[in-house]
């Protein structure tokens, strides 16, 4: 279990203070093909800051080599925002007075048509944590409705049991996202004030249960801005490495979400994740894990997303809404989870990618369940 690795390194980490790394350690990491954990720590240390350009050049080369000049596109679909947790940084916090909604299956289809109309074929389904309102059966029913419209269906919901993941996989879910939020247990306890989400270990082992349940693509991350960023990104990378090693048939990717404005009072107290810090984290991930996918969401501004693009990004969300409903005109809209920063529509993102020399990929999965692709002849030449 990754939890054991986490525990062991929690103890170890104090032996390797960030300030102890020197330029030589960074250069050694830069010159290796396969980096070890000390190299990772060196790349996250202050000593790496003068070497961001060298790191970026290598990260760019590795990404082109492994993933080509292509970016996979996806968009989130919030199914429901009922939640029994009290997360200090989240608008869906049970105590917040917001508009609570859940999409009916008819609305799910309406939203699906509106999203599919933009060309997107990878969708990520989100809910708050409420087994009562949006239990696995509800998610499965939504998947049934969505399957004909999309090549890939992902879920970003509360942690489930292995058996539940298997059922959803069999229903057509191939991708999974779960952010640990904070790897640091103390911080985790501080910001998750009440609700089932308080169980730090159960959440941390969610990705492993998803892998065992058959899910083909797993995306993890720490919510940057909660804990101390060096520790958090170190554990995120270790977590991804663990998943790659123990579930070699699963495509592992990492998100780097930074805290966004939300309803509620929580303000980040830890060392701020500035743009240069975000860049350093991303480059360290790429150099340590050349085959890991890196996901960049609309939490970041258009300008920054374009600047980050060549540094290792492989997946981007586009045309995103974080409210329940709102893609189609017919659905009523609930309160958003957080404010997004890049609200450009899909076609603008596509145009931007092409201008930058990248091919936007709408479809990178074969949904093998009852999906019959149209005949070649029927597609317009």
């Amino acid at each position, binding site marked *: 279990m990754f939890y054991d690795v986490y525990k062991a390194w929690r103890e170890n980490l104090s032996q390797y203070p960030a300030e102890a790394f020197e330029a030589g350690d960074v250069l050694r990491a830069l010159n290796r093909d396969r980096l070890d954990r000390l190299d990772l720590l060196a790349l996250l240390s202050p000593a790496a800051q003068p070497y961001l350009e060298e790191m970026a050049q290598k990260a760019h080369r590795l990404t082109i080599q*492994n993933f080509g000049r292509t970016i996979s596109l996806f968009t989130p679909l919030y199914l429901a925002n009922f939640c029994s947790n009290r997360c200090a940084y989240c608008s869906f916090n049970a105590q917040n007075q917001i508009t609570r909604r859940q999409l009916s299956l008819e609305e799910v289809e309406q939203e699906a048509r509106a999203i599919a109309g933009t060309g997107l*074929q990878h969708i990520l389904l989100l809910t708050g944590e409420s087994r009562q309102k949006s239990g696995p059966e509800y998610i499965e029913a939504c998947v049934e409705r969505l399957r004909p419209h999309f090549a890939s269906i992902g879920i970003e919901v509360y942690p489930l049991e292995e058996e539940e993941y298997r059922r959803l996989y069999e229903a057509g879910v191939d991708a999974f996202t779960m952010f640990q939020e904070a790897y640091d247990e103390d911080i985790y306890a501080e910001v998750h004030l009440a609700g089932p989400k308080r169980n730090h270990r159960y959440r941390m082992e969610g990705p492993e249960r998803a892998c065992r349940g058959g899910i*083909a693509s797993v995306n993890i991350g720490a919510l940057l801005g909660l804990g101390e960023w060096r520790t958090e990104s170190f554990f995120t990378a270790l977590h991804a490495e663990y998943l*790659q090693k123990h579930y070699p048939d699963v495509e592992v990717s990492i998100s780097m979400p930074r805290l966004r404005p939300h309803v509620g009072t929580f303000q980040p107290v830890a060392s701020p994740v500035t743009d240069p810090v975000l860049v350093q984290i991303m480059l360290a991930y790429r150099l340590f894990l050349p085959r890991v996918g890196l996901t960049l969401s609309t939490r970041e501004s258009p300008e920054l997303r374009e600047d980050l693009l060549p540094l290792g990004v492989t997946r981007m969300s586009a045309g995103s809404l974080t409210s329940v409903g709102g893609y189609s005109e017919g659905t009523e809209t609930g309160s958003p989870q957080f404010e997004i920063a890049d609200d450009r529509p899909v076609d603008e993102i596509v145009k931007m990618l092409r201008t930058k020399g990248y*091919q936007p990929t709408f*479809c990178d*999965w074969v949904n093998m369940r009852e999906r019959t*692709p149209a005949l*070649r002849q029927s597609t317009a*030449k």
Partner: protein
Amino acid sequence: MAEITLQQADAMEIGGIALDSRLLIGTGKFSSHEVVPQVIKASGSQVVTMALRRVDWKNPQENILNYLPEDIVLLPNTSGARSAEEAVRIARLAREAGCGNWVKIEVVQDQRYLLPDNFETVKATEVLVKEGFVVLPYMSPDLGTARRLADAGAAAVMPLGAPIGSNRGLKTRELVRILIEEISLPVIVDAGIGRPSEAAEAMEMGAAAVLVNTAIATASDPVQMAQAFGMAVAAGRMAYLSGPGARREQAEASSQLTGFLREG
């Protein structure tokens, strides 16, 4: 052998189709679909592989198939398959979708190196050959597996030169050489070829063909690199057919050790 002229040499026959070009091209990793037809033209390639998972049926503008010349042989691959069963399902979907009956089997259970699973690959080959597919399996160069694939009715075997996308060249040289010697099927070196000189090297060894994607797609000038690969593959093939002279370790010795046999 001596009578063979290079002009008449030497179409390669796979699945009943005679192919003049011995360079197969992959369509992944390019910055746009628009560049792919130019790459195909410059390379002279007649067989093009594409991942079915990347074929975008819903957006004609994004559908790679709409960018390929009509006379090209489509070689859909089963990228994304983690088991024989999934590979079989993807192959069937490809055929139903009008991609023809050729399939490149890729069964990968290792996302770090994308190394193929030979065991599952054999199983998928057995099923798909029976269903009438022309099966080209991507494999780790292992003689036992290659024999099983041949027995199962594969149309060729496609051993890797090095991990996909690594551009490291013919790291598996000795193992590929053994396959070329021992297997009567065409041996197509797939994956790892990073430079035209490495493609030529594989062809000089007697490989029937090579498949190249990353080295072309990630070049600064993919079209020119495609042409360079086309020329290198042709040159390597020509050299193989020419029967290169034996290599000597040193110049001929001046005093012969067996000269006495010819004396008196």
